[in-house]
Every structure is written in structure tokens, then in C-alpha cells.
């Protein structure tokens, strides 16, 4: 028996070694192709000069990082509003009480309208339209109304994600909760929503990553954030490298964000579940 156990271990080990080798070999081939082929393109030297200029990169990068602080601010102050509004809309749409019919209709109209128009149009409409009402400072700031446009559109996307999550929780869970004497609201809060939210974390993160990128659209109505700053630098030096630098800055935040979520989801899964199928 010991013999068969060690044979199995050997087999597993050789299989792991083999997959590692295959992965390394295929990556090496792809990288080699890119490194060898791209520089052979006829205009590579000019693209290299205007998109991957090391000097311009080093010059722009700190300025872009500074401007990016505004993006991050807009991102972080929008999230709580988006989540709260989306949860309200999603739970309203899932309610069955006839009293709430007008609210339900409103919630449906809201998601339909907000989702049906491109984000950039909402930013223009709300960002230019509302300050046009002539409110006092700071209430005429395009920063505020640009953020409001983002919150309203993203809340409509996220509410649909929450709604799908809520509907994915089996009816028997509600039955069990109600049979224990919990009210509809308590059932929603303690039984349905926690399960729904756990299930939708990946699509939710997807929306947050795309929000992080769409924050740059607010620059179109004025505020100088990273995209705008990159545009300024590009025009000043007639070189596109600042855009590449801006892309790198975005990746610096979005990649850790998605990796962290995956890790959190995995940890939660391991904590609550039984054995896993290989």
C-alpha cells in the first residue's frame, strides 16, 4: 500500500512539473514573438518614440499620479452612494407589497432610463445642465454633478446585479426564515441579502473596476483629473507617452483591486464550504 501511495505521489509530482513546463514554454513563445515581430514593423521606431518615450514617461508620471488623486476621490465618494441607492432600488423592485407599487414602477423606470443612455451623455446632461440652474458655490461645481451622474448611472447597473443576486437565493430560504417568525424585512436583511451579496461580488467588482475607469469621463466637463492632465502633457510635448503612463497608473490600482477581491471570495468560500471537487 505504501508503494502505491508513493507511486501516486510521484505521478502527481510529475504531472505538476509537466504543467509548469508547458506553461513556461508557451509564455516564452508568445513573449518571443512579440519582442521579435513588433520591432520589425516598418514604423516601429516612430511609435516607440511617441508612445514609449522613457524621458516623457518619467516627466509626466508624477504629475499624472497627482492628478489621479482626484479620480480616486471621485471613485471612493461615489461608491457608498451607489451601493445604498442600488440596494434601495433592488429591494424595492423585489418587494411584493401592493402599497409599494408606485415605488416599484419608479424603480423600474429609473433603471430602464439610466441604463439605456451612455454614461458620457448623463455626465454632459447632468454636469452642464444642473449647474446651469444658477445655484451658489459650491453647488454649481461640475465635480459634484459629474459625480452625481456617475452615481445615478452606476447605481442602476449595480441594482440589477443586486436584483439578480436576490432572485438567486432560493425561495426555501425565505420559507425557513419566515417559519422561524422573522418578518419580511428581517428575512431580507439577515437571510437573503447576505447570501445575495456574496454571490454577486465578482460581477459587482466588475462594475467597480469599470466605474474606476469611467471616472475619467468627468474630465469632459472640466475637472483636471488624470485623463485631462495626460491630454495637457500630450499637447505640450506632442508626444503620446503620457497616455501610456496614464494607462499604467490605472492598472496600478485596478489589478490589485481585482486580485484582492478574488482572494477574498476564495477565502470566504473555503471558510464556509465543504470539500472541493478537483
Amino acid at each position, binding site marked *: 500500500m505504501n508503494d502505491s501511495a508513493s507511486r501516486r505521489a510521484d505521478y502527481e509530482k510529475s504531472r505538476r512539473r509537466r504543467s509548469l513546463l508547458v506553461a513556461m514554454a508557451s509564455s516564452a513563445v508568445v513573449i518571443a514573438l512579440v519582442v521579435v515581430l513588433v520591432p520589425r514593423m516598418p514604423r516601429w521606431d516612430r511609435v516607440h518614440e511617441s508612445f514609449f518615450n522613457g524621458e516623457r514617461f518619467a516627466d509626466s508620471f508624477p504629475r499624472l499620479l497627482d492628478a489621479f488623486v482626484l479620480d480616486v476621490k471621485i471613485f471612493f465618494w461615489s461608491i457608498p452612494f451607489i451601493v445604498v441607492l442600488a440596494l434601495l432600488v433592488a429591494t424595492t423592485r423585489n418587494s411584493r407589497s401592493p402599497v409599494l407599487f408606485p415605488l416599484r414602477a419608479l424603480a423600474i423606470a429609473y433603471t430602464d432610463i439610466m441604463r439605456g443612455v451612455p454614461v458620457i451623455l448623463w455626465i454632459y446632461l447632468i454636469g452642464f445642465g444642473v449647474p446651469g440652474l444658477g445655484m451658489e458655490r459650491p453647488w454649481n461645481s461640475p465635480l459634484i454633478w459629474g459625480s452625481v451622474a456617475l452615481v445615478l448611472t452606476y447605481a442602476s447597473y449595480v441594482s440589477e446585479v443586486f436584483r439578480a443576486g436576490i432572485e438567486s437565493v432560493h425561495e*426555501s430560504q425565505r420559507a425557513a426564515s419566515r417559519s*422561524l417568525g*422573522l418578518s419580511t424585512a428581517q428575512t431580507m436583511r*439577515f437571510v437573503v441579502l447576505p447570501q445575495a451579496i456574496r454571490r454577486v461580488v465578482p460581477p459587482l467588482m466588475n462594475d467597480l473596476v469599470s466605474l474606476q475607469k469611467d471616472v475619467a469621463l468627468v474630465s469632459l466637463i472640466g475637472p483636471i483629473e488624470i485623463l485631462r492632465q495626460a491630454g495637457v502633457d500630450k499637447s505640450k510635448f506632442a508626444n503620446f507617452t503620457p497616455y501610456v503612463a496614464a494607462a499604467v497608473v490605472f492598472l496600478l490600482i485596478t489589478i490589485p483591486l481585482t486580485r484582492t477581491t478574488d482572494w477574498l471570495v476564495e477565502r470566504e468560500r473555503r471558510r464556509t*464550504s465543504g470539500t472541493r471537487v478537483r
Partner: protein
Amino acid sequence: MSKISLRNVSKSFGSHTVLDGVSLDIGTGQCVSLIGPSGSGKSTLLRCINLLEPIDGGQIFLDGTDISEPGLDANPVRRRIGMVFQSYNLFPHMSVLQNITLSPIRALGVDKQSANARALDLLERFGLADKAGSYPDQLSGGQQQRVAIVRALAVEPEALLLDEITSALDPELVGEVLDVVRELKQSGMTLVLATHEMGFARDTSDVVCVLDGGRIIEMGHPRDVLSAPQSERAQQFLQRIIRSGRM
């Protein structure tokens, strides 16, 4: 006076009649088994008593009070009548202890410490003390169902409805769950169970009801009903059960 009384209860889903004038009296501390073919209305009857389904006609009384009155607040009633389901329906995102204490803390307003203490007592009593911190997916079916029973008991109900609670279990795990039910019966709990376990119904219940097509076609002492059924439908049903080797 009966603990639970059904008077001419009827229920349909669309044009399909599921319960067709069911009347039944369940005394305090009695154990009533509902048997009958699939679709005969056993589960629906239990769900109606728990007010999970509104009834279309008739009345349901708990301690003489009509609980089927439309517009009545169902939550206090459900706290007095516990229910356990065929597929356990534990909350997968909560540990065993959290599953059990959720309702005592949130619905009954018990403080967390005493709710935990009481839950641990109950787990101890049913041999699950070491599972308090586990999550439902880490337990066997039999353990999950026992936790579900403990969860229902933690609300301190006056009666317990058991809806085919062993039907999803491996045969070897059925015993541990039925032992729990026997103990409940001994402790004086009023029990109504929908079941396919004929042996258990015969040995443990005080009354057996045979349902068919939403009606009670035979009712009485288990010995009489199970060994000498009067109606032809009940005879056929029991014949099939005997042939399938379940009795």
C-alpha cells in the same frame, strides 16, 4: 381543547385543488402522522398551518384562536409553531450557532449571551455540541437536519411541523433524525409530520391520517389505519408501500 384544529380547510393553486375540505384536531402533546402518495397535499397542509400559504376556505385554530383570519400578523403565530423542511433549509452563510440564534435574537429579542447559552444547551442535548462553529455545508445530511430541528426548537414553539424531514437522507442517517423526533415526542411536544417512514408512523404517532387528492380518506390509531385500512384508496396506497419494501 385541541392545540391545533383544522376546519374544512381548502386550498388551490390556480385550478388545481390541493386541499379539499380537510378537518383535523391535534391535541396538546399528540403526534399526528400524515401519510399518502406524493401530491396528496401533506406538505401543503403543513405549510398552511405555518401560514406560509394562505388558505382559500375553512379555518385553522391555534389554542382556539382563529389564525387563518386574513390580515392577521403571521409572525407571532409562526413563533408558536415551528417547522422543519425536507431539504433542511439551513442558512449556508451562517455557522450552526448563528443559524440557531438568529430568530431568538432578532424575533424574540433575547440577548445574544443567553441565546448562545440556550443554543449550546440544545446542541448538547442532541449530540451536536462540537458543531456549533461549523457551517452547514461542512455537516452530513443527518447533522444538518438535526441542526434544523434545534433551530426550530430554539424559538420555543408549542408545536412542531415536520415536512418529510428524512426524505433527503441516506437510509443510515434516517435513524439519528428519527431518534430526535422520538425524544421530542417523549418530552411532550405537539408534532405533526408528513412522512414516508411507515414504521416510524406506526410506532411513534398517536394518530395516522391518510391523505389522497387533498382529502383525509382515513384517520385513526396507527395500528388500525396501517394494518386494516377501510377505504379502497388507502388499501391500494399501503399495498404499494408494502410492495416497495418500506413497511
